[in-house]
């Protein structure tokens, strides 16, 4: 199957900081999660793939088009939806007017068809009832959905979502997951998040980034399996653990290389993620 996104050797520096370091990846249909700590390079990678920021080196294609040329970038943008980390709005626009504005900028010139499409995406993100309300009067979660609607308008083949669930309460986050799961049907979605639960619930593949590099690429089950035999419980904090925390029951959950006879636990995606980060940290330190 031809990948939606194929990137090789993407590198980018901010001053002395290597934000992306020789990143290569391939993305195909469905939702791919992008995990990583702050400063891992997730947003930079998303901005590069969304053509919002050119890379210093490397090349990539999106849906067969090369954004390294002006024509190619425009073709990519015609097939792309992008929800930035901090979406901004014209607060005096209504939700409908704003999504319509983005649809106009997405070259949808037939007004009747465009308005139908705007109504469709506002329905899809659950804003049909408030489409005539000014954005300044909408809650944070609703604004986030307006931004998702703006990204979805025009039915893009590649959707880039940068931490869309940040700042949402659990109910809003659940609804958002529902929208993203729906958006992942029939298109490629790249979802950056700090929430391992988002990845566990939504994604068929996951990338883990640290220090500007991709440290893991596989399925959530494979990431979880990485921690098999590396998670154990103890009554005291285990100084040999790479990561450990006190649980609600008073025992300690440890991740790392267990001592002999340790009480091994079933690993979670988060354990696999933490173990991957610890490995990446050791590699960086070395």
């Amino acid at each position, binding site marked *: 199957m031809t990948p939606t996104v194929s990137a090789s050797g993407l590198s980018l520096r901010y001053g002395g900081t290597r934000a992306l370091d020789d990143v290569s990846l391939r993305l195909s249909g469905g939702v791919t999660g992008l995990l990583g700590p702050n400063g891992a390079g997730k947003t930079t990678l998303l901005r590069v793939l969304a053509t919002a920021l050119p890379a210093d080196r490397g090349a990539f294609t999106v849906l067969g088009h090369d954004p390294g040329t002006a024509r190619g970038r425009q073709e990519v943008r015609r097939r792309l939806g992008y929800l930035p980390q901090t979406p901004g709005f014209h607060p005096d626009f209504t939700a409908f007017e704003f999504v319509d*504005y983005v649809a106009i900028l997405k070259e949808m010139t037939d007004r009747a068809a465009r308005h139908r499409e705007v109504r469709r995406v506002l329905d899809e993100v659950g804003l049909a009832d408030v489409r005539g309300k000014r954005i300044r009067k909408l809650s944070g979660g609703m604004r986030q959905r307006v931004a998702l609607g703006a990204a979805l308008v025009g039915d893009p083949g590649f959707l880039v979502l940068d931490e869309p669930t940040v700042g949402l309460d659990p109910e809003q986050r659940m609804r958002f997951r529902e929208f993203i799961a729906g958006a992942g049907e029939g298109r490629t979605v790249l979802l950056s998040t700090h929430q391992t639960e988002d990845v566990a619930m939504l994604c068929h593949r996951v990338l883990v980034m640290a220090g500007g590099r991709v440290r893991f690429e596989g399925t959530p089950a494979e990431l979880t399996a990485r921690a098999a035999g590396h998670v154990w419980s103890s009554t005291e904090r285990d100084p040999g653990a790479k990561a450990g925390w006190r649980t609600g029951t008073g025992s300690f959950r440890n991740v790392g290389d267990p001592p002999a006879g340790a009480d091994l636990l079933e690993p979670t995606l988060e354990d696999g993620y933490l173990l991957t980060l610890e490995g990446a940290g050791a590699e960086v330190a070395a």
Partner: protein
Amino acid sequence: MPRLSGDLIVAVCRTLPLGLLGAAGGTGLLMAGLSRTTGEAGEWLALPLLRVAILAFAMGLVFLLDDPARHTTATVPTPRPVRIALRVALVVPVAAAWWTAALLLVPRDLRPPGADITLEAAAAFALAVSAAAVAVRRSDLTRPGPRLAAGLLTSAMLVLLFWPGRWALLVPVEDERWAAAHDRWAVVLAGAVVVGVLGAVEPLRRWYWRMVPGR
């Protein structure tokens, strides 16, 4: 080729900072109109007041490219140069009308040579918009206007106080350097237009690393 539609023009028009432009324009007209009330002092005050009016309107123009939705619309297929050009095209008739009104507010006998002072105004306006275009290209700010306005005001003060006399720009009409100063204003205008066009273009490659070999 980008498709320009009536809907695009109307939508972009709605995103213009019309309130700020209106406030800047109003302040400018007030300044220009003051020369009618200054009596005999108007003879030497008219030109400085007109220049202050130009500065006031230019300070409004630095907000032209402020766009709170900038990041949300960063990757739409309508290219940034087209969106910037559209904003500029929409504001040019407003600026022309404002300038005509400002000039007409100055009594005819006190009015400086029209073509020359219009060249000064055009250069100042082009500098303001170019600075905004460069700020958009070189930063992630959604609202660079306030910083640019402060920078423009500071720059104007510095030019007034420290600009070398042999390259004088702000000279009185009777000064023998008036013609030469306006040759320089023409250069400023041309330079501002070139910088503005370069600032509006969306680069395909970052030029930062090319300036730092070996990185």
